[in-house]
């Protein structure tokens, strides 16, 4: 048991050493890059081994807490409790840590000469360390400290390239919203502290039942808003599409892959572990918020032509899907169907790790594209598949996974979510049960739109002809960057083809939260097939499908043998209706691709387009045409901008109080004195 703890300590120390190395070798970039990201990958490896072993051997179930280092301040204990839920999330952060550190070894070379790599490495490791501590923290104080350090280091990383005004603004927006979220979380924990009398998480265990209903609901809402801001659920998501694109790609991969998951971890820990049996409206709220986030996330993603902004919106969509799983689980807990609750919880958590993997993979792919074409705008890319074949393949695997298409892991977690929504229909007699199939339909709409979006993303970026000089001269990225992407691709494929093997890791987590161990029930035909929890609710086996597909490949091979043996393949120009040849300008663009959806959802997007034509001599032939299309982000324009304007106007009006005349200042004191004399005595 203790060698696992030493492994954990080793991992954490590894991050600290890497951060220190980053700062130490501040001067020489190569050393800083090598040491900070090298140590980080080693530490991440320890993290992976630790979490896999403690989950597999059930050591996490014993979940005894130990103190990392003695605290010299009163009331504070830096204690850590690796219980199953924490260890599961540590697995996510370590897995991503390994892949991203390897990727960063190559990616940071782009900053040589321009920016200091040591600082990037240092903050990268501080972020990894703080996130791991957030997952493992055992008392509210240590949790909040780790949480704030995570937010601070993420802010420093987001505004790493602070030369651009857009980066600074995004960084500030991120940190302000994240801090407001932290304020809500702090209030939530203080409410729990008020009820339990101490900060330790073990005293918060199912504390909800003993708290008054009002305080419990207040705590729920505070935690939902607090963790929701960090997770990026819809009304609180505006920082996410602003912050991720401007951050360096390895950072935005880490933020999208892991940082959002701290919000999910927070919600799972509080809703399932602390607040006791939930009332019905909690589950309904989380499910509704999840559905809205999913649908709006993907709709706005479709409208983007900045690759990383598109991926950022997809994070919102996938967070929505995860919340659907969690919301369904909460509703089942309310009606007492703990078996179904475990299935829904597994669906949610499985999608959490899936999303972490394929979103990080896609961001790394986008980073590789950005690295070689120096632009994020998809309208200037194209034809990269021939120039960057390996990145294209990895990006394609990521795209297939995120669109929940069969052989890969996205499909498995969405299949589990569908199963839990389907079985949920029979659990409550009231009309609430209608929510399950409706959110199932919205989930279907979301995954179909996601598929459309990633056809656009992959097609416009990688296929057809290059639309700009940069894209034409793009070249494949270095080996370490490819290695990072390869690890994530392998993980996606493994989680897609062998779900039943991976589900065994979920047993301690569901046992801790809902008291059931489902992996045996879910795997049929000795692990080949995954089945729903009801007796025969429906089975699926991605491994089986892939094997049969390989066999079925024999049919076209046979047809080729019989008929097409002697045929030849000739390369010719694409059909251009007889004009003098296709130029890259004639290709379909990202804006064009999403035009039909923009027209169908006009009410939501309220698209505006301006076309300026410049005529030379005849009014019929324009010399130049400038086309500009805008889609209105309703949350931005309806809620956040007016709120911002109102706050600034209020503050400017308050400034009039300090008008400069000493008479006014004396009057303020006079009035205070008179009022006090009259009323206070």
């Amino acid at each position, binding site marked *: 048991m203790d060698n696992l703890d030493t492994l954990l300590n080793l991992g954490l120390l590894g991050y600290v050493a890497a951060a220190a190395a980053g700062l130490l070798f501040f001067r020489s970039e190569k050393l800083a890059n090598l040491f900070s990201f090298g140590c980080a990958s080693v530490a991440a490896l320890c993290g992976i081994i630790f979490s896999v072993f403690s989950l597999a051997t059930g050591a996490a179930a014993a979940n005894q807490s130990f103190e990392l280092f003695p605290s010299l301040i009163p009331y504070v204990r830096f204690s850590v409790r690796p219980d199953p839920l924490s260890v599961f999330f540590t697995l996510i952060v370590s897995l991503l840590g390994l892949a991203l550190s390897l990727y960063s070894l190559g990616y940071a070379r782009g900053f040589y000469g321009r920016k200091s790599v040591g600082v990037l490495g240092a903050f990268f490791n501080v972020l990894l360390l703080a996130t791991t501590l957030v997952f493992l923290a055992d008392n509210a104080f240590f949790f909040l400290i780790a949480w704030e350090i995570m937010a601070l280091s993420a802010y420093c990383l987001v505004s790493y390239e602070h030369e651009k005004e857009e980066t600074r603004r995004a960084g500030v927006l991120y940190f302000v919203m994240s*801090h407001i979220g932290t304020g809500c979380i702090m209030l939530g924990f203080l409410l729990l502290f008020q009820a339990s009398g101490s900060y330790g998480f073990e005293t918060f265990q199912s504390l909800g039942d003993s708290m008054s209903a009002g305080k419990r609901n207040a705590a729920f809402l505070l935690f939902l808003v607090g963790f929701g801001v960090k997770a990026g659920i819809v009304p609180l998501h505006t920082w996410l599409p602003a912050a991720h694109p401007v951050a360096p790609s390895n950072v935005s991969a880490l933020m999208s892959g892991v940082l959002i998951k701290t919000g999910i971890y927070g919600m799972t820990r509080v809703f399932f572990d602390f607040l006791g049996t939930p009332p019905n409206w909690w589950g309904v709220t989380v499910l509704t918020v999840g559905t809205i986030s999913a649908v709006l996330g993907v709709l706005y993603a479709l409208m983007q032509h900045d690759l990383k902004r598109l991926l950022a919106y997809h994070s919102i969509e996938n967070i929505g899907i995860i919340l659907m799983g969690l919301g369904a689980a909460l509703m089942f807990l309310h009606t007492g169907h703990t078996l179904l609750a475990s299935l829904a919880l597994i669906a949610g958590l499985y999608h959490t790790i899936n999303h972490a993997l394929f979103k990080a993979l896609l961001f790394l792919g986008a980073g590789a594209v950005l690295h070689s074409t120096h632009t994020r705008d998809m309208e200037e890319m194209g034809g990269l598949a021939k120039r960057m074949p390996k990145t294209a393949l990895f990006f394609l695997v990521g795209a297939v996974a995120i669109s929940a298409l069969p052989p890969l892991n996205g499909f498995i977690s969405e299949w589990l979510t569908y199963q839990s929504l389907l079985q949920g229909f029979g659990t409550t007699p009231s009309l609430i049960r209608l929510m399950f199939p409706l959110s199932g339909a919205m989930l279907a709409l979301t995954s179909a739109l996601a598929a459309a979006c990633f056809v656009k993303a992959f097609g416009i970026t990688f296929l057809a002809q290059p639309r700009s000089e940069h894209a034409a001269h793009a070249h494949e990225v270095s080996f370490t960057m490819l290695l990072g992407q390869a690890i994530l691709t392998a993980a996606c494929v493994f989680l897609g083809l062998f779900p039943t093997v991976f589900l065994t890791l979920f047993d301690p987590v569901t046992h801790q939260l809902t008291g059931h161990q489902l992996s045996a029930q879910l795997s049929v035909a000795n692990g080949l097939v995954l089945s729903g929890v009801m007796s025969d609710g429906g089975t699926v086996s991605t491994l089986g499908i892939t094997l049969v597909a390989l066999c079925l490949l024999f049919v076209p091979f046979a047809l080729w043998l019989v008929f097409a043996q002697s045929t030849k393949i000739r390369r010719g120009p694409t059909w251009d209706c007889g004009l003098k040849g296709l130029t890259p300008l004639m290709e379909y663009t990202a804006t064009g691709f999403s035009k039909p959806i923009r027209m169908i959802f006009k009410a939501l997007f309220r698209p505006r387009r301006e076309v300026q034509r410049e005529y030379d001599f005849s009014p019929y032939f324009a010399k130049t045409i400038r086309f500009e299309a805008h889609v209105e982000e309703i949350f931005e324009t309806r809620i956040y901008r007016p709120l911002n304007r109102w706050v600034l106007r209020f*503050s400017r009006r308050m400034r009039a109080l300090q008008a400069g005349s000493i008479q006014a200042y004396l009057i303020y*004191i006079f009035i205070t004195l008179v009022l006090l004399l009259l009323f206070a005595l």
Partner: protein
Amino acid sequence: MLLTPILLVPLMASLACLLTPSRRVMEVLNVLAFAVALALGLRLLNQVLAVGFVAEWEEFLSADALSAWMVLLISAVSLAASLYAGRYFRRDLASGAVTPGRVKEFFVLTPLFAAGMFLVVLANNLGVMWFALEATALSSVLLVALYNRKTSLEAAWKYVMLGSLGLALALFATVCTYAAAVGLQPSEKLPSFNWSHLMTVAPQLDQRLIKLAFVFALVGYGTKAGLAPMHTWLPDAHSEAPSPTSAMLSGVSLKIALYALLRFHILTTQCVDSGFSRTLLLCFGLFSMFLAAPFILVQTNLKRLLAYSSLEHVGLICAGIGMNTPVTIFGALLHMGYHALTKPVLFFAAGNIHQTFHSLELRIIGPGVVKVLPVTVLLMGLAAVAAMGLPPFGLFYSELTVISGGFAAGKTFVSVLVLVALVAAFCGILTQLTRILLGIPKRERTSDATPWDGVGAMALLLVGLLVFSVWLPAPVLQLIQQAAGIVGGKP
């Protein structure tokens, strides 16, 4: 014999500076004086922990845990200010912003200012405390008016008028308290006006008179402490004074006035058992925090921004004490210490920026200071992170202690208000500082930007803050707990 040397050393330094012509010597004298004061303060700390109540000149000067903690703060901030002042005035003289006569005036008045503050803290007699506070006010007025610009004269005038008015009201409060003491034993000729004696006899005092006295003390000393409706002089004085002075003003002189107010608060809680003084302190503290936030958000001047942030922190300390549970008072006193270590660094950095950009307007300083003064911006960034209450630094810990103390004591709504105000101030400071510190400078700065200037003082304070954030030494912890006990009303 410990208290009188603490008073005498700065006075001697002031006199010595008056006589010596050379500036170098004056700098060294100041630094030495405050270093000795700090050492004496530490010895006082040990003695207070051992004995509990140190008195001299048959109780004319006395020091309990609260005053010992204050002595430490004063000497620390003054030492840092004097360390920084040397380089600061050398650059000012070079750029002609100030005449050698004025620099001499600075080095004479600063120890006087500090001595006044020491006397406030060590005086056992309320009248002498008032007199000492008046002395600090007068010495700091000429410091504020050091630059003799139009705006600094205006700031000095407002500072002195509002300050003197506040102190006149405070004098009335002292008179009323003394009258209550006299009323108790008409026979005895001149009852002793020592605070320790008053504490013993407090429960029998006339409650109505003590409440009247507290009201006047609140408005009087509140003006000097910069509580909300009476804070209007604070941004002017702090932005116009030279940086070392505004560091001392912001870092500790506000807390000295708050200390005086606390003496009356303790007296009133002893005498009037209802939460009269507690609720007033709480209301004024909260009002200050909420008033500071909008001003920080739309501020155009860097030093005024820092002044309003001090207003907010003083408001937090006041609210912490107003909640009146041992935990919140402990948090408030600890916050005094951490704030005293953080705020001077910000003012020193502002001083560096002021001397390099010759302006404090955020528009003119513009983006990209990091490219011009990298080291100053790094240290200012760390101090700003601390001032915003983020974890690696102690302010997060003390703020959370205050709020969790409030929650534990059932004062949920008030603690929520405190947290909301803190978050609002955080957003204000972050948006303003990011706008000027990061990015690319608009136009190329001339050569007079020497990045390594004045960094010693700043680094010393930051290291001190970081060390005390992580490791709270046992004697200091015990001292603060004892001080919290005194403020909380246990004798």
